[in-house]
């Protein structure tokens, strides 16, 4: 496993031309824009791409056709929003073995406007055992995880709200973030109730957005336009789909599996990072991820936010793009934390740039902590 560490570099990242509410753009268009923008960022031609990776409703063949390439490697692993994070590891493996030379991981989702979207769901279990009771939509599942955490550890609504407040402070520094106005704990607690323990400000945005990441081997990366970002470690894991099958609602086994693998590959400890990106579909997500990754003790992930460690000026900045909570969240958010991590490692982030970022962690979930991906990224070998 160790021989894969640093076997690939991220050389290009970018979003679609626009993010937000885009009823004038199809889902496929969001992919095409993002891939072209990321290729330009890398100083590569789209025609150089010979490995296509994507998750969601479109197959990699559909993306390849849309961008006009004939790939010799395709991967459509779809295990939820973390799929793009997991694919960095898959792309690294393919690049390492010469199965492709330039890999693109593409995301496009018309999550808000639903343009060119065809929902396709596996309903045998949820249709039978969940929908009749009102379950459906992520908040009705993640709420159960959150309540159980409050029961076992005494976590409070105010503490979850601190996550939204901290993340909004970062969004205020990101011109691309959707919601940038100041936010208080009281604002979160007083916002519209959706599914207790969640009010609307505990829940991520719903937007239309695309994003893409381009990887190649280190020898070729040196000829690209930007400072290469090395993939020091990558890991993935899956535990369950239905929440009834999750062994411990307050501890994500998928997250732990993915983290352990990524940290071992990179030869780092969970506490070595100076910048962290976590998948924040809900305010309770990042604290639970910190706990499962071994960065925080059980029940103490929220302390990173309420004590200001995660906020601008803090010792361990978390979700510096403004997160799914305030920047953008198209539905499968996982491409965006990778993009931000790379930009931070390159030092391109302007007002929100974290000083001296050398080692950055990306971790995301798929479904309800069902699957997970972790990356250890660095700006040097």
């Amino acid at each position, binding site marked *: 496993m160790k021989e894969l560490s640093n076997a690939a570099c991220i050389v290009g990242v970018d979003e679609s031309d626009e993010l937000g509410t885009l009823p004038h753009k199809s889902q496929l268009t969001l992919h095409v824009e993002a891939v072209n923008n990321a290729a330009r960022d890398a100083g590569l031609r789209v025609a150089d791409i010979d490995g296509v990776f994507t998750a969601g409703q479109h197959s990699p063949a559909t993306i390849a056709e849309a961008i006009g390439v004939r790939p010799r490697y395709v991967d459509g692993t779809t295990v939820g929003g973390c799929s793009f994070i997991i694919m960095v590891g898959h792309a690294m493996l393919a690049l390492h073995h010469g199965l492709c030379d330039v890999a693109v991981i593409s995301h496009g989702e018309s999550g808000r406007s639903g343009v060119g979207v065809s929902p396709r769901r596996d309903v045998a279990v949820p249709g039978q055992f969940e929908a009749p009771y009102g379950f459906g939509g992520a908040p009705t599942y993640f709420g159960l995880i959150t309540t159980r955490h409050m029961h076992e550890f005494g976590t409070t609504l105010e503490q979850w709200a601190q996550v939204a407040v901290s993340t909004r402070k970062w969004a205020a520094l990101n011109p691309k973030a959707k919601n940038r106005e100041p936010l208080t704990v009281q604002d979160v607690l007083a916002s519209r109730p959706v599914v*207790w323990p969640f009010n609307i400000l505990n829940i991520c945005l719903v937007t239309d957005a695309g994003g893409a990441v381009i990887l190649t081997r280190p020898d070729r990366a040196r000829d690209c336009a930007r400072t290469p970002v090395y993939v020091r470690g990558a890991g993935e894991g899956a535990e369950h789909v239905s929440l009834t099958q999750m062994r411990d609602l307050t501890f994500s086994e998928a997250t732990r599996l993915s983290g352990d693998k990524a940290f071992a590959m990179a030869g780092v400890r969970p506490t070595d990072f100076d910048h962290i990106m976590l998948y924040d579909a809900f305010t309770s997500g990042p604290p639970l991820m910190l706990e499962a990754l071994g960065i925080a003790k059980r029940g103490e992930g929220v302390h990173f936010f309420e004590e200001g460690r995660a906020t601008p000026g803090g010792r361990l900045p978390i979700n510096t793009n403004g997160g799914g909570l305030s920047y953008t969240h198209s539905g499968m958010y996982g491409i965006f934390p990778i993009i931000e991590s790379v930009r931070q490692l390159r030092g391109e982030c302007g007002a929100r740039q974290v000083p001296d970022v050398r080692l950055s962690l990306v971790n995301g979930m798929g479904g309800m902590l069902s699957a997970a991906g972790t990356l250890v990224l660095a700006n040097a070998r």
Partner: protein
Amino acid sequence: MDAPQRPLPSPLTPEAKPYWDGAREDRLMIPKCRTCGKPHMHPRVRCPFCASADLEWVRASGRGRLHSFEIAHQILNKAFKVKTPVVLAMVELEEGPRLLTNLVNVPPDPAKIRCDMPVEVVFEKQTDEITLPMFQPAHLTQATHGSSRTDSGRYK
């Protein structure tokens, strides 16, 4: 009978037929492995613990504990017409398996509900074909207990 106020279970899968047949007769049936002895939910054709195909259906006691809950103020599925707020729940049966369900006959108030409280099954008929198992606080049928105490406002 009035039109159902909820989306009915769909699709009804062959492997789950005894579950719904049982519910129609107010019995909570769960699959159990004859090889390793463990019951499971949701129904499958192989035991998820030991992969044995030697499964039987047993009647669960209907008793369990509220593993977690939430209070929905809106339901996305338009076929769900029960007046909100409703309590969405995960129940752990005393046999072990967990179910998603509703907690009923309780105020939809986080101060009045707590994780791990004892619950018991109740059956709500939807149509001639479909009856849904739901759960209520166990004390409601234990007259000797009188009013059950929950430490109000546990979840701040």
